[in-house]
């Protein structure tokens, strides 16, 4: 039986090479100067200093976090009722609705985002509909609103599916029990359904927030050339400016921020679970 454990050996080597080493390289680049020859190796904090002392970079970081937060909030506000509705439908209807929501996520994100360009551009369908309601010449494409829309569009399905999964897993007799014991629907929802669906909510938040912060093609396609989020900043450093060390430092900063946020979220989740079960 023990010999099966050897099956994991190749993967341990692979993971060291393909998962750990890349992260170590980013860290290494972020603390060294351009040229990165092993001989002229010297550690420096200048890239981090550059980032944190320049208000322009901090504004970009702040905006990325803010728009990701907005995206997550909107996805939660739309996604929770939708998931709730789905979980209350008949089983057949549930399957159809889940399929309806899953299908678009199978189609390439870039392709779906590209489709919005036509819809939002001047004289496009959305502008025509707005025009019908008397809103003329609204600038839609290449605005922050367009970026937000693109993000919600791309990430909302994750939220719905996650919440729906945890709502469906829930034992329905708990709801009956709650009602039998005299709880009104509102308080059943607040005290039974909501806490039980929290793991789904947290997974959903993770799956929305994480890609929203680092996305760079949605801002580029829908926000236009001068719309910068932190992902664009990193792409820019690697693809056009060529300052890989600075780019690596920004990546590290982002990775650390995300890690801290995820830890905070997990903590909330754990405390919640601990309170309920023990």
């Amino acid at each position, binding site marked *: 039986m023990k010999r099966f454990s050897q099956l994991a050996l190749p993967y341990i080597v692979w993971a060291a090479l393909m998962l750990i080493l890349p992260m170590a390289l980013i860290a290494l680049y972020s603390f060294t100067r351009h040229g990165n020859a092993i001989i002229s190796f010297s550690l420096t904090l200048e890239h981090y200093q550059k980032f944190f002392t320049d208000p*322009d970079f901090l*504004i970009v970081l702040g905006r990325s976090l803010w728009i990701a937060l907005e995206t997550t909030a909107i996805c939660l506000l739309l996604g929770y009722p939708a998931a709730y509705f789905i979980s209350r439908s008949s089983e057949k209807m549930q399957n159809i609705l889940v399929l309806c929501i899953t299908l678009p996520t*199978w189609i390439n994100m870039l392709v779906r985002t590209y489709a919005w360009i036509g819809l939002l551009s001047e004289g496009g369908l959305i502008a025509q509909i707005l025009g019908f309601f008397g809103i003329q010449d609204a600038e839609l494409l290449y605005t922050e609103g367009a970026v937000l829309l693109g993000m919600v*569009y791309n990430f909302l399905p994750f939220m719905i599916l996650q919440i729906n999964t945890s709502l469906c897993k829930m034992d329905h007799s708990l709801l009956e029990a709650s009602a039998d014991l005299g709880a009104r629907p509102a308080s059943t929802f607040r005290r039974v359904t909501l806490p039980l669906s929290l793991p789904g909510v947290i997974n959903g938040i993770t799956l929305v927030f994480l890609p929203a912060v680092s996305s760079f093609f949605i801002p580029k396609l829908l926000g236009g050339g001068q719309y910068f989020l932190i*992902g664009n900043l990193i792409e820019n450093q690697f693809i056009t400016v*060529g300052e890989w060390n600075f780019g690596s430092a920004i990546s590290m900063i982002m990775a650390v921020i995300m890690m801290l946020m995820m830890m905070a979220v997990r903590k909330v989740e754990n405390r919640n679970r601990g309170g309920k079960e023990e």
Partner: protein
Amino acid sequence: MKQSKRIFGKVLMGLLVVFFYLPILYMIVFSFNEGKSLTAFSGFSLRWYQHMLESRDMMQALYTTFSVALLATAISTVVGTISAIGLSKSRRIVRDVMAQVNNLPLMNPEIVTAIGFMLLFITFQVEKGYITMLLAHIAFCIPYVMLSVMPKIRSLDPNLADAAMDLGATPWQALTKVIVPQIAPGIVSGALIAFTMSIDDFIISYFVTGGGVKNLSIMVYTMSKRVNPSINAISTLVVVIITVLLLLINLLPLLAAKRQKKAEIGHRRWIAPVAIALVLAITVGFFSLQKGNERYLPFEGETLYFYTWGEYTGENILSDFEELTGATVIMETFDSNEQMYIKVANGASYDILVPSDYMIERLIQEDLIQKLDRSQITCLDHISDHLKGLPYDPNNEYSVPYFCGMVGIVYDTTKVDFKDLERDGYNIFLNPKYRGDIYLYDSERDSFMMALKALGYSMNTENQDEINRAYEWLLSCVRTMEPEIVTDEIIDNMAQARKALGLIYSGDATYIMSENEDMGFYLPESGTNQWSDGMVIPKNAKNPELAHAFINFAASYDGAYDNSSYVGYTATNEQVFQDLYGPGGDFEGINAYEYRTTNPNDEVFTYNEEIRKILSNLWSKVKIAASNAG
């Protein structure tokens, strides 16, 4: 009360479904549009499908997408399952550490993972291309497979394998006959997740690919700057393939269940993946069937890696060259000289590059390109005299001019007062009358050229004060004028008169003016950048001989005519220039097509690494300032 909640739910669901499907539907409808517009439907046509089928680039991208996804899924499923079984029998500490390691790609922002892979491949000098893309996909898919297999293994009786072996099974049999069937549902869902992640991936693929290999996402990203309804056609094709796959996955188990009602769960679950594999195998087989014809061809079976600007080749030049020589041309495109330089300087290998003047100078200085073998170059005689022996390559030892032109102002004659242009020159970009109505071009060189010329300096200045003043000029422009900073998007947008003014390359202006009569092109008296892009052969080219053949072909009458008439940039072949600009030519009377040689303020860029670094950093700050001003 309850009723109203249901209605609210239904309305919400209805709106969401519309929200999710409207863009997809819109895309499908416009893939059948006769015209090029993405907003006005002018009639039914299949022309974009034809365009798509004829474009090897697109077919190749589709093939890459599906083949990488299939291979990555298959490999990561097998490896992930085996490793998960192995890990479950390992010591606890190993298991915990590996769980954390596997979390790296799941919990890190994708762009960080992507950059990690890129640095890895570059550090170990693995040439970026199909293999690196596949490796990266396998690397980020395995954790998903393990994540979905692990819980199933944990729920197994730990003595199961021992029992099987006590009964005489070999370890291999115990594994394949006992354990794997038990955890099959986990494996299948793991494989499905891996497939979804791989087929949809953009960010990681974008950073680890090279050598012209691109998947669908990368193609859309690089092509999306200009309206190209073929993207809608190929997207519709993908929608159809995916829908059929999903229907199969969801319907086949139902059908199978009907046929054999008592079938065990593990059994019917296998049908879906088999069906997927079948459909995909047919798709892949279909694409690999496209093979060439037979004839004597000097470069039969060889490959030319051609790295050039986006939208910079004629419709037929590549296929004509392939037909003539039997070689295959793999084209990859860049947006800026700097982007090209970073790739080449980091070891990416191409046979031909098309950099601009100052970049050629830099590549020569850094010993990245090779001298042309003049005995193999037969085309120099056809090149216009004023484009030969330019300062960056005085004897044309390294380069043959490809296109040339100026940088100027494209303007809507119905919106812009010509007097303003004449009076202000480039300072029209600071004229509040046109606030919110201008485009800047996302190029550090040309933006600083505009600012320096507006202030009356040389665009090759090395004076820090002058550069700082130009930087201030650009800052005040982005802070007060609400410009949009674009690259190729400007072409379609100005052709549709979306804004009043824009800084533009003359060749793009030529195209715009031939599409829309209201557009004009103005070269300020304070001077401009006379640029030319040349074909060069990098030091690490794999096939210099084929590269020479291509240079000759591209500079010949046929090649240059096809390029110039299609793209709109000024031909460097004198005869082609005369024919296109002269009476009856495609660009007769379009001033943007002519190369101005009479203004003493016009200059050619020279290369200075110090200055480049300064400008590059300042320009990236201008862009961030623009972003923060909006």
